[in-house]
């Protein structure tokens, strides 16, 4: 299904590509290394540094009211063959007619306001092998219509072609003792990955309030991981769910107050989950050009044991963001999430800086501590790492 969609998308893109000279080419190539500070937990995992190459070109073409986008993505990983993967992040045709938009093809859609968890965001499958933060997504085939009104923006999506979540292979880190057998995914729907999902969203702002309301019906992106009959691996089980979500931000002076909430049915007993918090920014601290923002978010998740496991059952995230506002756009985000019930802590540091005009250096460090065997992130206990990426943008 996905391959067919990709092919038809390419058929749209290719004739356009023939009209050379008008196509806007951008994107990046990058080299990345991850150094793990501890020996691995599981026998197959390697302990030497992991090295990856990433190729992410972006092609865009605009002709009057028509826009085309094609963004392939490829990662080649030295260690984990599941992490080496190709994806089409975008391949769409967009037609804009005054206050209407029609889009066909593969695209990425982001919904939400929070920083440390993206609850409401549901259109795209998470590309787990890319990063643990849930912000890397697989391209989703879709047909969508958007209408702009005085009273807000309304979008409707038909989503044919389900994308399975990616999971690390036997050589990879960030996994438990049993691998996820992605070749044997189970679906609640008899149509399996061909089930057409639907979603709708309303978003608008009222003075200082930005409000979004959304609904999703179809195959949930989060699988339940169930032990196979032989007891040798975990099978991902994808259920049909209904999920209603809302995201609200109140912007007052230097304060951003944020809330995201969902209600989900279809994975065992229905449950609600929410994230709420704030971000406050001190501008031009110590008479410099730099800004420092402080962030706090609280996560609640009411899911039961029959729903997919989450590491966000009752966590507090506290962080700080430093923006130097210099020519190199130097930025640092540091924070930690703590689960008051288990004292489990997850530390996160992200920093980036432009070098010259076209290069970027990015540092990420993630540490885990105090894990309980019962907690979702326990398998990550020995996976503390420092990641450095050097990218050339064009």
């Amino acid at each position, binding site marked *: 299904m996905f391959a067919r969609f990709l092919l038809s998308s390419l058929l749209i893109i290719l004739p356009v590509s023939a009209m050379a000279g008008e196509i806007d080419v951008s994107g990046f190539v990058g080299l990345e290394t991850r150094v793990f500070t501890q020996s691995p937990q599981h026998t197959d995992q390697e302990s030497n540094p992991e090295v990856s190459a990433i190729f992410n070109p972006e092609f865009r073409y605009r002709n009057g009211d028509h826009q085309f986008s094609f963004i392939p993505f490829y990662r080649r990983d030295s260690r984990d063959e599941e992490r080496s993967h190709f994806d089409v992040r975008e391949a769409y045709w967009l037609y804009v007619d005054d*206050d209407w938009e029609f889009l066909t093809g593969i695209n990425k*859609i982001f919904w939400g*306001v929070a920083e440390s968890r993206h609850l409401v965001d549901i259109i795209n499958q998470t590309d787990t092998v890319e990063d643990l933060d849930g912000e890397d997504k697989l391209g989703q085939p879709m047909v969508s219509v958007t209408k702009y009104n005085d009273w807000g923006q309304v979008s409707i999506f038909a989503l044919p072609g389900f994308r399975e979540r990616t999971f690390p292979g036997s050589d990879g880190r960030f996994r438990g003792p049993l691998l996820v057998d992605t070749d044997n995914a189970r679906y609640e729907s008899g149509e399996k990955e061909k089930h057409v999902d639907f979603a709708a969203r309303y*978003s608008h702002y009222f003075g200082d309030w930005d409000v979004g309301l959304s609904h999703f019906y179809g195959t949930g992106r989060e699988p339940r991981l169930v032990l196979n009959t032989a007891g040798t691996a975990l099978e991902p089980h994808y259920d049909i769910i209904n999920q209603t979500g809302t995201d609200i931000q109140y912007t007052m002076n230097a304060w951003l107050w944020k809330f995201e909430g969902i209600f989900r049915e279809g994975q065992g007993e229905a449950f609600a989950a929410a994230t709420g918090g704030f971000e406050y920014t001190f501008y031009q601290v110590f008479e410099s*050009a730099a800004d420092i923002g402080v962030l706090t978010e609280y996560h609640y998740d009411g899911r039961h044991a029959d729903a997919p496991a989450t590491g966000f059952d009752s966590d507090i995230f506290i962080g700080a963001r430093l923006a130097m506002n210099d*020519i190199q756009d130097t930025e640092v985000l540091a924070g930690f999430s703590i689960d008051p019930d288990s004292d489990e802590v997850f530390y996160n540091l992200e920093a980036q800086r432009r070098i010259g*005009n076209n290069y970027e250096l990015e540092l990420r460090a993630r540490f885990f501590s105090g894990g309980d065997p019962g907690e979702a992130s326990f398998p990550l206990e020995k996976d503390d790492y420092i990641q450095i990426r050097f990218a050339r*943008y064009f």
Partner: protein
Amino acid sequence: MKMLSLKPLSKGRNLQPNLESQKKDMPSSSKFELWKIKWRVLGTALVLGLVSLTLFSSVPAAAETPEEKGFAVAARSDRSDRGFNDSIVDMTMILHNAHGQETSRSLKTKTLEVPDESLGDKSVVVFESPADISGTALLSHARILDPDNQWLYLPALKRIKRISSVNKSGPFVGSEFAFEDFTALELGKYDYKYIKEEPCGDMTCDVLERTPKYEHSGYSKQLSWIDQSVYQVRKVEFYDRRGGLLKVLDLTDYREYDGGIWRTHKMHMENKQTGKSTDLIYSDYKFKTGMNNNDFEKGVLKRVR
């Protein structure tokens, strides 16, 4: 001057209903009296018109305070821009550090004129380079004394994020321009005071002092030089919160577009305290492209590049 000519006209129009009611009450024989009244009314309108013309011209009027005159000069400059509807322009920003090294960025700005002076214009700034931030876009709905509404688009996440706009005095993408140097161009954002008249280049300029009325400004005051021929801002001096001279902005290479719209094509901002400077070069202005409010909604940021 186009706007000013409306003033006496509208005054005459306001008097018209009174004239009509008098006409009804009057006996038909006194047509001559009616003519006399008509002439008197028109005469009054003419005088009022001349007075207001005087008020708004640069000739000093005895009854005018420096504040009124300052406002009048600023208003005339602001209104000289009326009727541009919308514009799209490419910009190159060149940042010079104190050691003479330079870096450049390119961006595109789309602006929608909001004719109501109690509301501000709408604008979208899209970055084209450096490559790592290409596609990043900033949407602003300017307001007069309340903080502007601003949304930032982050292309890597395809995320549209409402951001705080209180950071008026912070540097815009590492340049010597502050956010407020772009967003605080609305007439109602300042108190004005007329200072003096002096030559500027081969023209004569009115020099005004303007004091920000909005909160969180990094400036205690600004001095602005507005020429007396086409009413454009030629130079601005920015004074920091302690009253010291912080930055000097020179606006040059003005060109006239259809409808008498003038636009500078080079701005040079020099920081007098650090020695750093930023040039902003404008090219390829397009006006009346047919954009409307729908082109300035937060949802369009993801397809604006």
